[in-house]
C-alpha cells in the first residue's frame, strides 16, 4: 500500500502538471480538492484518465469522483479494490 501511495503521488504530480509540488508535500490523507491541493473539475477528469492509463481501471460515473479522489489514500484503496487480478 505504501509503495502504491508513493507511486500515485509521483503520477498525480506528473499528470496534473503540479510543478511546484513535491511528492513529500502531499499528505496521504490530505484533501486533494478545493481546500487541500486546490484541484478542480478538470483535474478530476485527468485523474480518471490516470486510473485508466496506469491501472486499467475505468471510473465510468463522474459522480463517484469526489468520493474516490478525496485523498491519495482513498485513490489507493479504490485501486486495490478494483484492479484486475492479473496485474
Amino acid at each position: 500500500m505504501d509503495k502504491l501511495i508513493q507511486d500515485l503521488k509521483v503520477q498525480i504530480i506528473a499528470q496534473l502538471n503540479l510543478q511546484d509540488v513535491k511528492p513529500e508535500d502531499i499528505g496521504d490523507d490530505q484533501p486533494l480538492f478545493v481546500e487541500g491541493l486546490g484541484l478542480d473539475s478538470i483535474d478530476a477528469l485527468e485523474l480518471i484518465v490516470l486510473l485508466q492509463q496506469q491501472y486499467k481501471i475505468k471510473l465510468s460515473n463522474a459522480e463517484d469522483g469526489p468520493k474516490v479522489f478525496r485523498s491519495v489514500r482513498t485513490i489507493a484503496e479504490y485501486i486495490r479494490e478494483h484492479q484486475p487480478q492479473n496485474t
Partner: protein
Amino acid sequence: MNAPVFIAGMGAISAIGNNLSECLNALENQQAGMGEMAYLHSVHSKTLPVAEVKLSNDALSEQLGLSKIISRTAMLSMVAAKEALENAAIAALSNFRTGFISANTVGGMDRTEQFFNAFLPDHKKGKLRDVVHHECGYISELAADYLGIRDYVTTISTACSSSANSVFYGARLIRNNILDVVVAGGTDALTKFTLNGFNTLMILDQDPCKPFDENRKGLNLGEGAGYVVMVSEKVAAVLKKAPFCKLSGYCNANDAYHQTASSPDGTGSYLAMKGALDRAGLLPEAIDYINLHGTGTQNNDIAEGTAIKRLFGPVYPKMSSTKSFTGHTLGASGGLEAVFSVLALRENIIYPNLRLQTPMKELPFVPETLLLKDVSVKNVLSNSFGFGGNCSSLIFSKI
C-alpha cells in the same frame, strides 16, 4: 448610437430541419433531432446520440451547386445564410453596405480529420487541400464569397456564445453607421474532435438530453447553422414587408470563475441578462419567454437557473431549452436560438422543453413542457453561455 436595429430575415439548418419551415414544424410537433450517427464515423456511434443535420456532404454540396465538397461547417453556413438573405428579400442589396459576421468553433476540422486519417499511417498520403480550410476565419470567407458579401467579413470565436456575440456585434456595426445590412449568426459541424473532447469532459448524455431536469446527465452534441439578417432603419423603410422584430438589448460579461465550469451563482449569466434588460430599457417582468442556454449539464443548468432566480424571482417568464430538440450546436447555438426566438415572436408560440420529468429541486420554477400557442410574446430573451466564462444575452422585441 441608439438607432433601432431590425430583424428582416432568418435562416436555419439543424437536426430538426433543413430550413426554417421544417425547423418550425418540428418544434411545433415536438420532434427532437437526436439519434444514432448516420454521417459521423466514430467509435462512440452506438453509445452517444448526436443531433446531425439529415443531409450528407454530397447532398449539401449538390444543393448548394458547388463543384466539389468543402468543409461541412462552411456548407451548413452557406445553406442557412442563403436562406436568411432570401427570406429578407432586400431589393437591390448591392446598393447597401453589407456585412457577414459568422461564428464557429471547429473551423474545417472535419476536413482536417480526413487528412489525418490518410496522413498519420503514411506521411506521403493525405491531401493538403483538406487542411487549408482548417482555420475558423476561412470558413466565413468561403461562405461570404458564396453569398457575394464583400464589404465586411469577420469571424468570432468565443466558444458556445460565439454566434450570439456575432449578432450583437453586427447590431453595433449598424448602430454606428458602418454597415446597413448584416447577416449574423454561426455554424458548426459535428466532428470527432468535439465529440471525443466533450466525452473526455464526461458531460455527454448517453440518452437524449434532459435540460433543467433534476436527473439530467449532460448534453448531446448537435450541428447546424442559424443566421438573422439585421437592417438599419433606412433599409427597413424600403423593405417590401415589415421586419419581424427588433434587437432591443444585448450584453456580454465574463464569469471570471473557471475555464469550463460556470460559477455556482451564475454571476456571468446574471450580468449578461441584467445588462441586456438595462440596454433594452425593460424590466424583468416584460420578458415573455426565455430561450435558455439549457445544455443539460449539471453545472450549466444550476448556474443559469440560479441567475434567473436572482434576476426574475418571484414571478417567472415562460422558458424552455430548444437544445432538447437540436442538441448543443456549439458555435451555431446562439444563431439558431436567435432564429427560434424571432420565430416565437412571429408565431406567438412557446416551445416545450422536451423530456423534462422531474423539476430541479433547487429552483422555484419549471420550464414549459408543452407547446403553448396563441400566447402574447412581445419580448424574448435568448441566453448563450460559453467556456472561457463568456456569457451573452440577446433580447428581441416586437415593433
